[in-house]
């Protein structure tokens, strides 16, 4: 009998733990960001600070992301109501069996680009052969892999392929010459390269938008099963409405938005000029979107991903991966 006491306690603990409800059903919203607090997410911080969420009677918690956080995982674990994610990563999660649905798309264009040293002789994508290219992973590798597949360049290295490095989230591989090109965002790492003293004419850049292989970024995604609950749909409609209001305010007042982001940065590591610059660049990406997902953009992203050749990111066109129900409700 005494051998059963310890197992009993443990099992009871487990039972109560998993039986407990995972989400609060009131007016609280937890948003999981896909990176650390920075102006890339200014719209949400502005909405929080300026009281737009309060006006909609919402209690919003913004959870910063980081290198070890996979937002789909947090969503699956019930740690957040909504997540920000790039569309390739979310569609791949959907295929893995996690039914996430896009409810809003504040970012109209992609900020992803490849930055290369001009003295490597690279002038076009076909010159990538035999070069070393740094790629982020953790969901950010899909656009690159699709692009190389479409160009017919293998990513296994060697003379006729590219050697891919899993780069960390800084620009040192380029500066230390460990890679010929690195992945950068227009609003973040590219500025860091310039800050390090490199001039623009020492570099040659390739924007994914210009190469026609861009994918949609930073959409708001939720779990499909929650969309069957009308209270949840109503809550998210108000959330999207307030968030888009925050985004438009941020676009028009970049310095104030950068200041708000800085106030919310817990690490104390961000600088004002970097955030103002980031806000300026992000505003270019959110301009032209009112929050509703443009079906043509969605289709273009899906086509890019499906054209991945031997190693496609997704194997078939997704069904029901997005909905206009919430954005329609939010915009009128």
């Amino acid at each position, binding site marked *: 009998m005494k*051998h*059963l006491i310890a*197992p*009993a306690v*443990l*099992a*009871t603990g*487990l*039972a*109560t733990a*998993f*039986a407990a409800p995972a989400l609060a059903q009131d007016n609280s919203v937890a948003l999981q960001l896909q990176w650390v607090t920075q102006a890339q997410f200014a719209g949400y911080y502005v909405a929080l600070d300026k009281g737009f969420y309060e006006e909609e009677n919402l209690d919003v918690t913004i959870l910063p992301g980081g*290198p*070890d956080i*996979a937002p*789909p*995982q947090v969503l*699956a*674990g019930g740690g957040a109501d909504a997540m920000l994610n790039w569309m390739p*990563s979310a569609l*791949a*999660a959907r295929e*893995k*069996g*996690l039914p996430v649905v896009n409810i809003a798309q504040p970012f109209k264009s992609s900020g992803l680009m490849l930055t290369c040293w001009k003295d490597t002789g690279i002038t076009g994508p076909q010159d990538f052969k035999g070069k070393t290219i740094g790629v982020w*992973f*953790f*969901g950010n*590798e899909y656009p690159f892999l699709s692009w190389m597949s479409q160009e017919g360049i293998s*990513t296994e290295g060697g003379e006729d392929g590219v*050697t*891919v*490095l*899993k*780069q*960390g989230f800084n620009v*040192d*591989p380029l500066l*230390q010459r*460990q890679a010929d090109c690195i992945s950068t965002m227009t609003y973040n790492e590219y500025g860091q390269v310039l800050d390090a003293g490199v001039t623009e004419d020492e570099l040659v850049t390739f924007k994914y938008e210009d190469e026609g292989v861009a994918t949609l970024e930073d959409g708001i995604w939720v779990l499909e099963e929650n969309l069957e609950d009308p209270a949840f749909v109503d809550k998210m409609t108000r959330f999207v409405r307030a968030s888009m209001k925050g985004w438009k305010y941020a676009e028009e007042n970049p310095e104030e938005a950068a200041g708000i982001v800085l106030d919310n940065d817990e690490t104390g590591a961000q600088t004002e000029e970097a955030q103002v610059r980031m806000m300026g660049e992000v505003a270019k990406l959110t301009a032209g979107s009112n929050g509703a997902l443009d079906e043509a953009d969605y289709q273009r992203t899906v086509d890019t991903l499906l054209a991945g050749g031997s190693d496609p990111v997704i194997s078939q066109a997704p069904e029901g991966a997005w909905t206009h129900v919430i954005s329609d409700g939010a915009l009128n």
Partner: protein
Amino acid sequence: MRVRLRSAATSAVLFGGLLVVLGLLAGAAPRIPALAALALLLVWALAWQANRAFSLTDARIARVACPVLFGLTLLLLWQMAVRLFDVPSVILPAPTEITVAIAANLPTLWADFVQTILKGALGGWLIGCTAGVGTALLVARSGFLRRGLLPVGNFVAALPIIGTAPILVMWFGFGWESKAAVVVVMVFFPVLVNTVAGLSDSEAMQRDLMRTYGATPGQTLRYLALPSALPFLFNGLKIATTLALIGAIVAEFFGSPTLGMGFRISTEVGRLNLPMVWATIVVAALTGSLSYGLVARLERRLTFWHPSQQARG
């Protein structure tokens, strides 16, 4: 002893039979957490009883059977918990899925193993241990150096790997060299500290004896200091083995080519391919346990004379 074996076998048969019944129950019954918890509880209690019975048998059987049975029980409880509580696979996959992932990805797992363990961890371990032992031999002769170097060494050993790994990747590049460098930094000081302690562990009487034999410093080293240092050295080597494995994998999180166990874990988490992540973790755990066991085996052969190898508490 034969009586105890029979009771162990009886327990195992009863256990197996009840498992079948429980399995049918679990499949048929709705997913009520309380019922599931009860099932887990029963399974654990039965397994514990079987384990107790095995532990009373012959030492050789018990030494293998008990840990194996314990491990199987844990796997069984894991599988039951995941299925009965409907845990999503993107959070915690079931052991069956992990086994399938291992079987389906053997070439990838092998290539990762070569990159991380054989090139990074092993290379760094060899360099670090050699450097540690060499430095210890130099340092042990001078009490001055010993008193000065050890506090500094403890400080350097306290630098967290999360900080040193990005710096070393920046210095040594993305290949296995930087991973080996991280391993060297992690392994050097434990081996140094332990070897220095071991080299000075000889008793005054033993040192006097060498003196009466007219032994040169080299001979004292070879016949007295080195053998008495062996138990401590092996202690350091066992620590170094675990550290080397962890160091090589963690270092790959901060920059690597598209190969390696650390790379595999971090990217597959991003792709929500959790069974593959756990497959790599299983390979890491197996490697770590086997290498620890290897070093322990070697220790038993070379330091059979030491009390710790003889006493049975």
